[in-house]
């Protein structure tokens, strides 16, 4: 699903070397030379870092011969890929048809207010990233949201806010 995400702003002082780029070596070894390897390479990289660091593009390109432009094209085409780090927990609020008619906007609005972020942004403490997604496939429980692999159904704005507060409390302790 295409997610409305805030475009990464290139920061001059961004520390590019805070990721251990050697982590992707086994991945490159596994997929190098195989046909159709670009998406699995990017997926694997994202699974390691939570996003695809700029350095990873360069390294994969050097080792496998894939063009950076092609990889960037693929990474920006699919909703799954991120080019900058996400929060520790990603809140996916479903905006599928069933959720839309059951007022999913109320959930997103309540979360935006509570977290003080816009849709697609990460909280300043890096704990949550708020996203709107197209359909999580739990239509009969609409409106729903998913945090990690857990799905919460039949929500109201208030309940959604309560859930994110509880998770934060639980994990802070």
């Amino acid at each position, binding site marked *: *699903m295409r997610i409305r995400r805030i475009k990464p702003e290139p920061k001059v002082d961004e520390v590019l070397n805070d990721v251990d780029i050697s982590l992707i070596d086994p991945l490159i070894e596994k997929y190098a030379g195989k046909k159709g390897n*670009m998406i699995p390479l990017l997926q694997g990289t994202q699974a390691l870092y939570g996003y695809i660091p700029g350095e990873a593009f360069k390294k994969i390109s050097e080792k496998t011969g894939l063009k950076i432009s092609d990889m960037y094209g*693929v990474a920006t085409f699919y909703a799954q890929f991120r080019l900058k780090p996400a929060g520790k927990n990603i809140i996916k609020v479903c905006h599928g048809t*069933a959720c839309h008619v059951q007022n999913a906007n109320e959930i997103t609005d309540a979360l935006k207010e509570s977290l003080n972020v816009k849709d697609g942004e990460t909280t300043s403490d890096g704990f949550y990233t708020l996203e709107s997604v197209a*359909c999580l496939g*739990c239509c009969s429980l*609409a409106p729903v949201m998913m945090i990690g692999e857990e799905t919460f159904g039949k929500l109201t704005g208030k309940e959604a806010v309560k859930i994110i507060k509880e998770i934060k409390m639980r994990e802070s302790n």
Partner: protein
Amino acid sequence: MSTTKVIVGLGSCGIAAGAAKVYDKLNALKEAENLDFEIAKTSCIGMCYKEPLVEIIDESGSFLYGGIDESKALELVEKHILRHEIVKDYVVKTDLFDTEEKDFYGNQVKICLRNCGFIDPESIDEYEKRNGYQAIKKIINDKITGEEVIKTMIDSGLRGRGGGGFPTGMKWRFAANSKSDEKYIICNADEGDPGAFMDRSVLEGDPHSVLEGMIVGAYAIGANHGVIYCRAEYPLALKRLYNAIKQATEKGYLGKNILGIEGFNFDIYIKEGAGAFVCGEETALMASVEGERGMPRKRPPFPAESGLWKKPTNINNVETWALVPWIIVNGAEAFSKYGTQGSKGTKVFALAGKIKRGGLVEVPMGITINEIIFKLGGGIQNDKKFKAVQLGGPSGGCIPSYLGNTIVDYDSVNATGAIMGSGGMVVMDETTCMVDVAKFFLDFTRKESCGKCTFCRVGTKRMLEILERITLGKGKEDDIQTLEELAVQIKEASLCGLGQTAPNPVLTTIKYFRDEYEAHIFHKKCPAKVCKELLTYTVNAENCNGCTVCAKNCPTHAISGERKQIHFIDQDLCIHCGVCYSKCKFEAIEIE
């Protein structure tokens, strides 16, 4: 050995409703009290509106309990398991007596969903016990040729369940007739339609039926590789698929010389989709499997001649593959006896939206929309008025309530301007604004357009801008006409199904709900009271007791009034945010 078996429905919906907690509770009780019963898991039972579901099977029969939380689970253990007392209030389905939910399952014919809710999806043994892998065994034991398999599929009248509705057997024949040393079979599990979840339920509930369908297809077509393209948003479905492939390989249903047939080699691997709706389109899907941007390709050549890696390829969706083994085991006639002239068999629908009983239903083709909504679905939530039903997701359209007697088959649904699609059925009531719905779908297709064709890329954006201004009360007189013109151009000038169908939600809502568009444009009113900019908030003098809550919360200080005095909203300052309405506890804010 215990004779009592307790089964908990652990599909994604069930887990979201708390089924995992119920399962843990039952397990804990069993351990703590050393109780004598067997506990098992299954997946989606289909009655999503009654989740979590717990089935208890003992010597007196089978009882499906609905809406079970942890405390009710304790009650079930105490009463049903220990004292053999049936807790009638929670029973939603049993063979022994009728329940209130009888209408929901009474009209269903479960072919695709034959095992969903009956087996543990992580156990190949349980699948085999229910006629699993009998289709491929039958083919081998009876020495049925590939051509005969294809003929059976053609005779069954099965049409592709992904939405296209192309006859499956014909498609197989094209791929079978292509000569190549390598051929591919693809299962399209990129269920991206917002409002559809039947593929997810089948993959979570009965993954082996999909694998077996693909094995049968591979045999008939002569394919040696299979790919399942599944959305990464379905983690549980993926987990169960990986597990099922491992089990099937261990048992010799996949791999080299399958079931001892020399030269019948077939393997299946999973490709996790990276999130792009357009990848549901078959040529875009293949581009994605090849690791590229998922953009559609020109046809011809058709995938049957030159598909994945330029080899002959056959693509069907999850539901189609899951039906295949049943048709082979039971014969073409057993399938084609259901349905209408042009649409045979059964179809799974995902009922959602403002309906009382949301869930997964499988019904024979030819049943009417009204029967599905009012009989199976139990009618509209809070007994509001049924307004329309949306079929076919972003490529489909809205069918108004007065066409409720339309039967569901490919041709009748197409005649309304909607499409059968993959089977999402989102029910809408009088509080749903049809312009807003059209805007919602167009916003979706605009975001998902891959950008290859100009008309789809730019046209959907222009249409969305018009719809946005209509819902903001800035609609222009000729907007409806402009929308219709753009719609035709996008349909005609787009390469793939996404663009060709993107205007459908707008066209059908204009066709059936033109008055709503006109109310927005000419009278600046939203009849369903959804479009906030078009609403007027006023204070009802009789209900207002002057509690000042609305005035305190109003972000623009548009509300004035002394304590214990009737308040007043200044319409010039009001920004239609609706805060006063949601904060007022005395129903003193009225919307028009």
